[in-house]
């Protein structure tokens, strides 16, 4: 870990200004991802702006009939909120399928969205990695890639976005709200928030330097059955091999997004439209362009089978 300076901001705009004004500045919220990466020198910020005092720790109703979740709301609080449990159960189930109780107590809504990939080569600074060190090459592509991405990936990087919460937010069509140093705010649909790797796998989302997440808003409730099924090698404390977030209506239509497959939660409109025809039809459309390695080819049939199980659960 490199030495760094540290400050605690009082307001979101002040935080944004502090980060934007310091080259190598970064926000820190729960610190559960950032500090690990700093210890390994995968992240080397020179200045940390702690946002824990800026407020933004409430879940409030919106005028549109949805919920506005402050960026500092912990994963524990969010998943246990009575309104979320009732109207957005897919979100509760996704969050509770992640990490551990202790981590969820610390992890924040904003930080969770921005957690970085779990590609093992990304974590070993002796290995070439375009995400850590643009232009260095990708050690994973011809290496151990069992957990890595099959679609939306690129020649430069085959890593996945590893999180669970965002997959549920994707089916819910959440919107990410931000503020910058000048106090400008914007609303970014979750669909547009995470970037595909392309030639620039070190760029993972559309946030500008110093742009701070203030909230995530959920549109009005969708009804339907909310299911999150996360498949992993052990029952807890493991990232998804594949996960499926789904909201299924009584008529068999619905929404579905996949985790563990791609640089972002993977939701394809044409695939979703095929939900009434069953899992195979959805998977065929969602993963038509997949480019798996020999190690992770199984993910495609696993995604289809997991969805089949989810649809069976929705019917039961």
């Amino acid at each position, binding site marked *: 870990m490199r030495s760094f300076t540290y400050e605690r901001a009082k307001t979101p705009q002040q935080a944004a200004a502090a980060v934007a004004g310091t080259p190598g500045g970064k926000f820190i919220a729960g610190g559960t991802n950032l500090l690990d990466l700093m210890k390994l020198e995968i992240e080397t910020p020179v200045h940390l702006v702690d946002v824990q005092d800026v407020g933004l720790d409430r879940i409030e109703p919106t005028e549109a009939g949805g919920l506005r979740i402050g960026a500092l709301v912990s994963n524990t609080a969010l998943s246990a909120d009575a309104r979320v449990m009732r109207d957005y159960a897919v979100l509760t189930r996704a969050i509770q399928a992640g990490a551990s109780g202790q981590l969820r107590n610390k992890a924040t809504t904003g930080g969770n969205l921005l957690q970085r990939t779990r590609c*093992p080569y990304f974590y070993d600074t002796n290995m070439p990695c375009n995400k850590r060190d643009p232009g260095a090459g990708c050690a994973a592509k011809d*290496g*151990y890639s069992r957990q890595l991405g099959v679609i939306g990936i690129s020649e430069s990087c085959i890593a996945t976005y590893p999180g669970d919460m965002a997959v549920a937010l994707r089916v819910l069509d959440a919107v990410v709200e931000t503020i910058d140093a000048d106090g400008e705010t914007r609303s970014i649909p979750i669909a547009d928030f995470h970037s595909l790797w392309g030639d620039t796998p070190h760029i993972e989302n559309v946030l500008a330097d110093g742009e701070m997440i203030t909230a995530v808003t959920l549109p009005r409730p969708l009804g339907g059955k909310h299911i999150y099924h996360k498949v992993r090698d*052990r029952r807890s404390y*493991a990232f998804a091999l594949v996960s499926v977030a789904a909201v299924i209506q009584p008529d068999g239509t619905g929404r579905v997004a996949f985790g563990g497959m791609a640089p972002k939660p993977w939701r394809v409109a044409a695939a979703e439209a095929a939900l009434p025809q069953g899992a195979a039809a959805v998977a065929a459309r969602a993963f038509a362009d997949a480019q798996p390695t020999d190690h992770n080819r*199984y993910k495609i049939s696993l995604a289809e089978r997991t969805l089949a199980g989810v649809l069976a659960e929705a019917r039961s």
Partner: protein
Amino acid sequence: MEYNAPAGKNLFDNAKVVGKPTRRIDGPLKTTGTAPYAYERHDVVPGQVYGYVLGAGIAKGRIAAMDVSAARAMPGVLAIVTAPDTKPVGKGMGNTAPLFGGRDIAHYHQAIALVVAETFEQARAASSVIRVEYERQKGAFDLASAAPGAPLDTTRGGEPDQVRTGDFEAAYHAAYVQLDERYTTPDESHAMMEPHASIAAWEGEKLTLWTSNQMIAWNKGSVGDILDMEPDNVRLDSPYLGGGFGGKLFVRADAVLAALGAKAAGRPVKVMLQRPLIYNNTTHRPASIQRLRIGAGKDGRISAIAHEGWSGNLPGGSGENTVQQTRQLYAGDHRLTANYLATLDLPEGNAMRAPGEASGHMALEVAMDELAEKLDMCPVELRIVNDTQTVPDEPEIKFSDRNLVRCLREGAERFGWANRNKTPGGLRDGRWLIGMGMAAGYRNGPVGKSAARVKLDRRGRVTVETDMTDIGTGSYTIIAQTAAEVMGVPLKQVTVRLGDSAYPASAGSGGQWGAASSTAGVYAACVNLRRAIGEKLGFDGDAATFDNSRIAVDGGSFALTDAGALSATGEMTYGDFQDDYSVGTFASHFCEIAVDAYTGESFIRRMLSVCDAGRILNPVSARSQVIGAMAMSVGATLTEELAVDKRFGFFVNHDMAGYEVPVHADIPHQEVVFLDTLDPVISPMKAKGVGELGICGPTAAVANALYNATGIRVREYPLTLDKYLDRLPAV
């Protein structure tokens, strides 16, 4: 005291304290976080500073250049010890590659520098600005491609490790049924909770290491060999370990670098191997390829059995003896067992909990399941008909006490084996495919000489001192029970001090010999103390009855305190009469598993192990040993694998997130039953170890249950869902 004939009735047979369920006497220290583990021994020496280890970034080659100038200039840095500037250190027991020194790199993350600084953070920060240039060399990293040409293993005793009895080939070809399958097991990591850690302090020529180590006497000598110094100038102190599993049998880089760093800095230095370093820097259980051929008659009797195992290691490293249990477990006149050893440039392989046998059962006991199916025979019955009371390759050698058949019958009965579904893939419960599997288990029951000192004070308190270690196993408690039993005092009157090389040398903790050996040493010391008390008070210590802090002798009695302060040492050694016996531990293991028919996820529902291990000194800690081993078996079967990158030559998933040991939620229900057996050959205690028996076989029980649930046989461990997903029924 020499043990030179099978035990008759002795002081232990009173079993007033031994054998009783007894909570750990060190439990309160553990649960309050006050047991002093190596890295937190802040009080043992003032002025401690921190060392941070830099590991090699390549698997094989040379350090062309190392620039530490920037690191030296970093805040707080006190000293930097580099490999190129250090003559390769000597090798201690069990070291294959040198732990430090020289320009050659033998494996990934081999230690190449230590930065010593005032704080941990400063040492870590400085280590990251050390610049290293390497000359890479090609290496051999793939066991599958190195195995075919590998020679017979000669690393155990110098002779090629092949045993032939009868005419295997002819008998196999003539057999009514034949089975010929290959199984592979991956490299595995001990992944113990406490990383390797040491604090080193020099006083002139004398070195003290407060460390985390299983084998104090061995490693006092090893530190001498490694650092080229008199072992008498070395003191090791390791009273508590947060797990070892064989990973701390030997001296590792933490101890060596702490010593070198302390010398360089002129201050006591503490070094803990960073978690991401441990997987490649230290030892691991080597991967294996195993071929089983079994021929049997219609009645299930094995006529021919061949088990061959291939493993790899660095030059000079030993091979994995995966066929060991096959030489003991089942009858059969025509036999072939052999181990082959390839040379690889991966990190060094060495002992991990039940070395050889843990992996060996993963092949043998699945092959037996496959054989049972071919014979259309109950897997329990198949094992029963092939039981033997003599060692199959050496029929003149008897098992000292073998009750495998009882384990099998009792296990089947308790588990409800008779009700199982016999058609693989044929039992469905909603979305779950349900299956049951079983396996037999064998682990040898070694014992070794062990010494202790026992002191009696004026208040009648008994204190035991021995360099025995408690690696989480419960040594403190069984040693206290032993002393309480033999000295006739309540358990709370006994103090136990362990792990200091200043104490008499014990057998240490390893190979499941610790409990049997160390308690025998304490027994010998107690017998000597009783004699000393008798001498002082004028009676025969062997004939008196010590009970409830009083001594009853013919025609009178004493209070124990009448003896005043006294102390005695004793050592148990073993005569060669044991050579006429094979001393082993036996078990049956059962497992019920549910497999999600959609996703292939597998969830253990319940497990049972029935163990035959002689006298159980403490059913509480013995059970803990076995359930821990059962959990480790679940990991070995379903999730644990050090993933080899065959290009870069290293274990990729080198942290606790990537190397997936089971979590609590993976292990719902475990039951352990101990048969009430006594083994008169092993020691006067008649007790054998259980710590490794518990990982010999549950693996195969899980694998066989998975097969019974799905009808799909996977022979490459770990049995992750990607290996069978496409063969599950369509959804």
